[in-house]
């Protein structure tokens, strides 16, 4: 089974992370912002798994489990807020949320 060098894993996770980040910044609909957040977290998961496998330790995978729980919690709270935003603003456009400024 060919050994995938750590370097490639890290590059993959950075790229994935960048995609997620651009998704969060560029998207106008809040739902997609939450999704892009998920992508960023999974990218981090990949990095941890890769690092863990290189050092032959379970730490990486344990961290990944923790990240999954975090992602779940975040999405739960995010969706709750999404519903309240829908009820209040009748739309999911993120740019409506800019009353507080200056």
């Amino acid at each position, binding site marked *: 089974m060919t050994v995938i060098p750590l370097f490639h894993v890290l590059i993959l996770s950075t790229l994935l992370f960048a995609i997620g980040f651009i998704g*969060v910044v560029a998207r106008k609909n809040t739902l997609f912002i939450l999704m892009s957040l998920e992508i960023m977290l999974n990218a981090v998961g990949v*990095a941890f798994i890769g690092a863990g496998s290189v050092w032959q330790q*379970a730490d*990486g995978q344990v961290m990944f489990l923790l990240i999954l729980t975090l992602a779940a919690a975040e999405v739960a709270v995010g969706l709750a807020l999404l519903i309240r935003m829908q009820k209040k603003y009748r739309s999911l456009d993120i740019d409506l949320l800019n009353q*507080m*400024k200056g």
Partner: protein
Amino acid sequence: MMSIASNSQPLLTMTMASAILPQLIIAFGITLALLLVAWKRSQRTIALFTFLTLFIALLANVSLQAMPATQVTQLLKVDGYSTFAFSLILISALVALRMSHSFLKAHVEVHDEYYLLLLLLVLGAGVLVASDHFASLFLGFELLSISLVGLVGYHRESNYSVESAFKYLVLSATASSFMLLGIAFIYSVTGDLSFNATIPTAIYHQQGLGLFFQLGLLLFVSGIAFKLSIAPFHFWTPDVYQGAPTPITMLMATISKVAMFVVLLKCIIAQRYLLLENFQLFLTSFAVISMLLGNVMALQQQNLKRLLAYSSIAHMGYLLIVIIVTSAQSLAFTWQSALFYLAAYTVANLSIFIIIALIQQQNTSSLYQEDISLTDLQGLFWRAPSYALLMILGLLSLAGIPLTMGFIGKFYILSQATIAHAWWLIATLIIGSAIGLAYYLPMIFKIFADTPSDTLCDTQKMNGKVKALGGDIIEQVLVYSFITFGLVFGVLPEVINQLIAS
């Protein structure tokens, strides 16, 4: 490279358990609170119960003071500094609990989730303060952030709560993912997630993977900087501080700052990141920008909470100086100045927020306590001298004027910086505090200004008004105790120095 699972000793010896007793108490408290909610849903009991858990945890924590540093499993390490920080956190939680009573009375249904989130938040902070491993850091960080999101958006009807909660959620999620990516890169290079892992110094300078180490370090620090609202990553602070209800803003300004700073300091000291010269560069640039930016943007702020947000950015800048100038042989002194400054900063913020909450209680215009403006302070001194005195003490302490703890904190930082000959940082600190005076003093003058209706002789006016400002006995006791706190520790800082010096 000791992995978590495989070791022979028992997982939790008696000494370890007693070391993390306060955190354990809070954890059990949360579970008991859940059971209590099932048994008897009444706000008074849940509030009382939370008060009890926090109080007992504080007692346990204070008794821990004399205990030597103990490593509790690989994740946590409890030493004198973390116990002091945790007692600071518990005190702020108790004060916030007291202040949220009036805020919650405004709504009819029972608010047991509020208290649960509060306890979770304190547990998160407890874990952070005692953490010695990236995993515990991550756990504490997330506990803190997620529960704060819930607390920030607590009011359904208020028009700002959704906006601020959402902003806080998205930004804290991005920041935590940045931090995690950073940790991943560091882990991939060093192979060990615990803080005091011995990192071969060669790694710092080799190309290729070493580059990832530096990138990881940058990402990690930027994630933490977000939470500490340091300059380039501070954008969320003013809006979320304004949107959140006052007790929650108080919590954000004190608990999350104290916890994050202590864990950052522990990590940097343990991992000896300061050897990297561009790490030094990052921190210096963070400090300079946040000092100047925080003070300048606070200049003509009318909304008090936004003003305090900006001033907390500036204060985090001052605190960063402590990390930048620390050197191997003066670690104890670094801890002492950092913790003293944090204590002064917390006491000052608590006193100011207490007064803001009390003022907001009596003017029903801002039900959800967002917009408290400078004009509400007009002539406060002649209406309620004790409240005004506490507010002035808090402001003077933030401005760093003698007679208050803030000055001794600034004295610590200045002495550290002069030893390390960091002349540029000192210059920025002086310019920053000069600009800072330009917005602290007008607030104090506003407190002394005459209320437009101050025609009738001020003596009767004063007696009549104080009762109207509301706040029963406990608030008065709180106010007077904080005044004595501020003055006594300002004039005799030796008392706190003993506490820290372990």
